[in-house]
């Protein structure tokens, strides 16, 4: 912009009144000069003035045309329009509050859901240059079942043989017992190879990270503390580095303290907290090539692509498969870690985001309809302004400004709503990895700003377009409110309501399907009885209990003590129990040898105490349960479940047959002495897997879940159970104490939350659509008061009027249901992964939500219809 133009911009903006006065004077002076000219040309003064006016063509129009070319005109009219819009909003508070609240709900809910999507799916992992971080899964190409973790020795080969990773590390969560003071404590720790911190580019705030040789056997035990543990247990002592802590009866040297905001692994459930990181020394399985317990990830060297890394790892694992039996048939899959972390919840979150954006669309349609109704009333105002010199463009701009101001108010209110609602959302949400990182960061703010503008455009377009079709002369001539509302406008309003109905139906259908699935899931028999059961874990440190015999003895004593507690019905323990923990491993079936290139049979292999089935409420179907007499001196026995009997002995009787748990240490053939019922796993929807149970005394383990069936409130026995365990060994803490009911509830928490959220969204949609149809019918009834009066004067009965009005609503609802059903049939397939026991096109669900929608629409049209029947024909006719 050149200087004179900039100067005049300033002048126009700063000295507006002076400019205006001068413009007015100039145009009037011009008019006067014209009059003078005309008089000189011989006209009489009256005629001269008339001709001058004709020539001028309207002082105000000329002035407006000049204003429009002025520098800063747009800016200036924007201020003017905003002020005007604000005045209009203040003048009709009911309209304004309705529209702003509707928008605030829509934008707020969208912002809240997006904040979660942003934290869980979009935001980079909380480590520098995290786009180069990848995860390495073991795969089995024959079974197309990828996603296995890997064994520590295999990881060491990967580390040695690859050239594509800057660093590579492997980790496993590990429960550690910190002893040596009054209260032993079980903590969640992470066992890791030595390059973890270099890989993550994170440094301890005190001390140092691991040295490369510290993950090798025979090295001194070292440990890194979390900030929280350092504060809690060591009083934030800066001299903690170099001290030793007693972990599972062994001394660990503290080498450092991690920053307060350090989180690893990043995809741990949000409620878990890791308190220590240590090399793999305490893990007895670290040398076993068959124990796939480790979670491996790496940092790509700069410039190396995912495909290059994949190619190299393919070659590496090919070489390993030649060399090791255990690696035969295994491959590697390299995936982006960022994508991996959110992968489980991604579909659910995206569906929620989609659903809530439909709600916002309905809200927009509602506001558009409100604006259209007002637009009709304001037609005279628009016509008047046009007569005073405002062009079409100017009027459309004015109406768009009003829409935008509404949207911005709704957006700001929505942001506040989201800010408040987010806490609630996070508290109610199930444990989603990274959920606790949810904040309203700039990306969220940009999202809601964009959403606000889009909403303003969407609902502002209809009323603005309506300006285009108006004719100022016609509107001005019409007498007040009696002009007919144009057919176009009526059609636009009907279309909007039909769209609302259709969108609401789609949401209702989705929510209905999830609700039905949830009911189905709740009806599933899990195969065990979760009522009145307390569960807790005990983990014996291998250093203190190196001999399997002593581990078994420990649990034997604990079981005895717990079983004799008052209020306890019976007590059992297992190292693999439904929804709590599992131990999958290979088994052999006698008489069914597995060919070398065939995959081994992998199954659940719980080691249990005799009363486990009773405590868990798993029914014994045939044979007998274990007793304490099934010990190392007696016949090796096993119990299987129905699924195992069906799968491994499809045409024979499994009783008396023999199985072997391939455990590495001289496995023995076990005779099957009983068959029990199947249990359901996570989320209750996984059907029972084959299980082969062995008695604890014949197959001791250091890590067991205690299952205590109580006569009363199970949680009340927590302290007594803890004491019973500590009476056997005062250093053994309980951890993860929960009731079984909690565990079961947690396992369906994700499903419940998603169902509840979608149901709330659908209810919101239904409410908004009902308001929409109610508003439209009320408006129409008002517009048609005169006509209804005439009809009644001519003999129409109240029922006829009722019928006339309700039919309009019903037509809209039915049109909406038809369109919505098509939409629902197209969209519900995205839900297929989340449904249980119902098809995506479940007719019952569709029928019931359609009925619900039509019912609500009928009610929403009935209320204004009743008002219509009370029209007094005389009043209506005199109204003219």
């Amino acid at each position, binding site marked *: 912009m*050149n*200087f*004179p*133009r900039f100067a*005049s911009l300033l002048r126009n903006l700063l000295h507006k009144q002076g400019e205006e006065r*001068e*413009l007015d*004077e*100039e*145009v009037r*002076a*011009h008019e*006067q*000069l*014209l009059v*003078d*000219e005309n008089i000189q040309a011989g006209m009489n003064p009256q005629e001269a003035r008339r001709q001058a006016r004709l*020539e*001028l*063509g309207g002082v105000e*129009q*000329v002035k407006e*045309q*000049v204003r*429009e*070319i*002025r*520098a800063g005109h747009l800016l200036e009219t924007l201020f003017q329009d905003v002020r005007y819009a604000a005045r209009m909003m203040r003048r009709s508070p009911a309209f304004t509050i309705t529209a702003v609240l509707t928008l605030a709900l829509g934008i707020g809910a969208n912002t809240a859901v997006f904040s979660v999507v942003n934290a869980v799916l979009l935001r980079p992992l909380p480590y520098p240059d995290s786009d180069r971080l990848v995860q390495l899964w073991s795969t089995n190409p024959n079974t197309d079942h990828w996603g296995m973790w890997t064994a520590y020795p295999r990881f060491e080969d990967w580390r040695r043989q690859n050239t594509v990773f800057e660093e590579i590390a492997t980790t496993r969560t590990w429960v550690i017992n910190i002893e040596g003071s009054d209260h032993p404590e079980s903590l969640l720790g992470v066992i890791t190879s030595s390059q973890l911190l270099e890989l993550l580019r994170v440094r301890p705030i005190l001390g140092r990270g691991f040295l490369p040789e510290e993950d090798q056997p025979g090295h001194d035990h070292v440990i890194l503390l979390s900030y929280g543990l350092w504060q809690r247990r060591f009083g934030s002592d800066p001299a903690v580095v170099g001290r030793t802590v007693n972990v599972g009866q062994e001394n660990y040297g503290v080498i450092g303290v991690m920053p307060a905001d350090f989180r690893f692994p990043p995809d741990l459930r949000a409620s878990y907290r890791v308190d220590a990181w240590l090399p793999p020394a305490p893990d007895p399985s670290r040398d076993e090539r068959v124990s796939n317990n480790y979670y491996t990830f790496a940092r790509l060297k700069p410039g190396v692509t995912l495909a290059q890394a994949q190619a190299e790892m393919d070659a590496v694992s090919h070489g390993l498969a030649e060399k090791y039996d255990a690696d035969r048939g295994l491959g590697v899959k390299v995936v982006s870690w960022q994508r991996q972390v959110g992968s489980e919840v991604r579909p659910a979150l995206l569906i929620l985001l989609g659903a809530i954006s439909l709600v916002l669309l309905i809200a927009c349609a509602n506001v558009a309809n409100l604006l259209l109704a007002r637009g009709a009333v304001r037609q005279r105002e628009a016509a008047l302004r046009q007569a005073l010199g405002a062009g079409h463009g100017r009027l459309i701009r004015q109406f768009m400004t009003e829409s935008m101001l509404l949207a911005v108010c709704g957006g700001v209110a929505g942001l506040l709503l989201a800010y408040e609602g987010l806490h609630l959302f996070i508290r109610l949400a199930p444990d989603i990895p990274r959920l606790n990182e949810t904040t309203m960061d700039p990306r969220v703010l940009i999202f809601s700003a964009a959403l606000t503008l889009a909403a303003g455009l969407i609902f502002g377009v209809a009323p603005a377009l309506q300006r285009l079709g108006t004719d100022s002369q016609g509107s001005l001539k019409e007498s007040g409110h009696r002009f007919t509302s144009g057919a176009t406008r009526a059609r636009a309003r009907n279309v909007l309501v039909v769209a609302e109905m259709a969108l609401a139906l789609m949401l209702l259908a989705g929510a209905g399907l999830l609700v039905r699935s949830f009911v189905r899931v709740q009806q599933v028999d899990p195969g065990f009885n979760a009522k009145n059961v307390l569960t807790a874990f005990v983990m014996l440190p291998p250093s203190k209990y190196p001999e399997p015999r002593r581990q078994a003895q420990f649990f034997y004593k604990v079981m005895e003590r717990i079983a004799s507690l008052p209020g306890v019905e019976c007590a059992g323990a297992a190292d693999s129990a439904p929804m709590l923990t599992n131990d999958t491993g290979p088994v052999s079936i006698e008489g069914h040898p597995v060919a070398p290139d065939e995959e081994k049979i992998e199954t659940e292999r719980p080691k249990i105490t005799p009363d486990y089935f009773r405590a868990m409420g798993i029914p014994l179907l045939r044979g007998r349960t274990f007793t304490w007499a099934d010990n190392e001196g007696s016949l090796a026995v096993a119990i299987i479940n129905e699924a195992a009997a069906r799968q491994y002995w499809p045409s024979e009787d499994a009783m008396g047959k023999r199985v072997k748990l391939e455990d590495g240490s001289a496995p023995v053939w076990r005779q099957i002495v009983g068959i029990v019922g199947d249990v359901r796993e996570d989320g209750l929807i996984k059907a029972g897997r084959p299980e082969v149970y062995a008695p604890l005394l014949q197959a001791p383990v250091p890590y067991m879940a205690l299952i205590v069936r109580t006569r009363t409130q199970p949680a009340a026995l927590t302290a007594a159970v803890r004491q019973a365990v500590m009476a056997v060994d005062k250093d053994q803490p309980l951890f993860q104490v929960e009731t079984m009911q909690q565990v079961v509830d947690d396992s369906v928490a994700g499903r419940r939350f998603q169902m509840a959220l979608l149901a709330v969204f659908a209810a919101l949609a239904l409410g908004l659509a009902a308001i929409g149809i109610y508003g439209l019918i009320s408006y129409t009834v008002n517009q048609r008061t005169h006509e209804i009066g005439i009809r009644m004067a001519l003999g129409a009965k109240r029922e006829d009027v009722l019928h006339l009005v309700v039919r309009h609503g019903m037509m809209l609802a039915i049109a909406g249901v038809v369109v919505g059903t098509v939409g629902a049939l197209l969209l519900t397939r995205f839900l297929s992964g989340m449904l249980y026991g119902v098809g995506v096109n479940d007719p019952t669900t569709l029928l019931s939500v359609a009925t619900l929608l039509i019912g609500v629409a009928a009610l929403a049209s009935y209320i204004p219809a009743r008002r219509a029947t009370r029209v007094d024909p005389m009043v209506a006719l005199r109204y003219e």
Partner: protein
Amino acid sequence: MHLAPDQTNLLQGTLDMMILKSLALAEMHGLGISMRIEQITQGTFQVKPGSLFPALHRMEEEGWPVSHWGESENNRRAKFYRVTNAGRHQLEAETNRWSRIALAITRTLEAL
């Protein structure tokens, strides 16, 4: 033929050119300008106030004419416009452009 120069590019430039040309000889008020244009085009162009004033104000913001209040020949108060150096350059540029266009059109017509 009566033309009301309006917003099309060609004609807008033309209106600017005609206004600047009128002002090149002497300063004038708005009515003087429109009468002058009508006179020199022998009534072909009649510049109504609805076109004249927006054009004048736009050009003034570009700095081509400057304005001041003065007295008309019959002692009426009126706003007078006077062309600036920048305005003369603009007139020259517009004139050249117009000559090129006129020449091109003439040639086109002769060729047919």
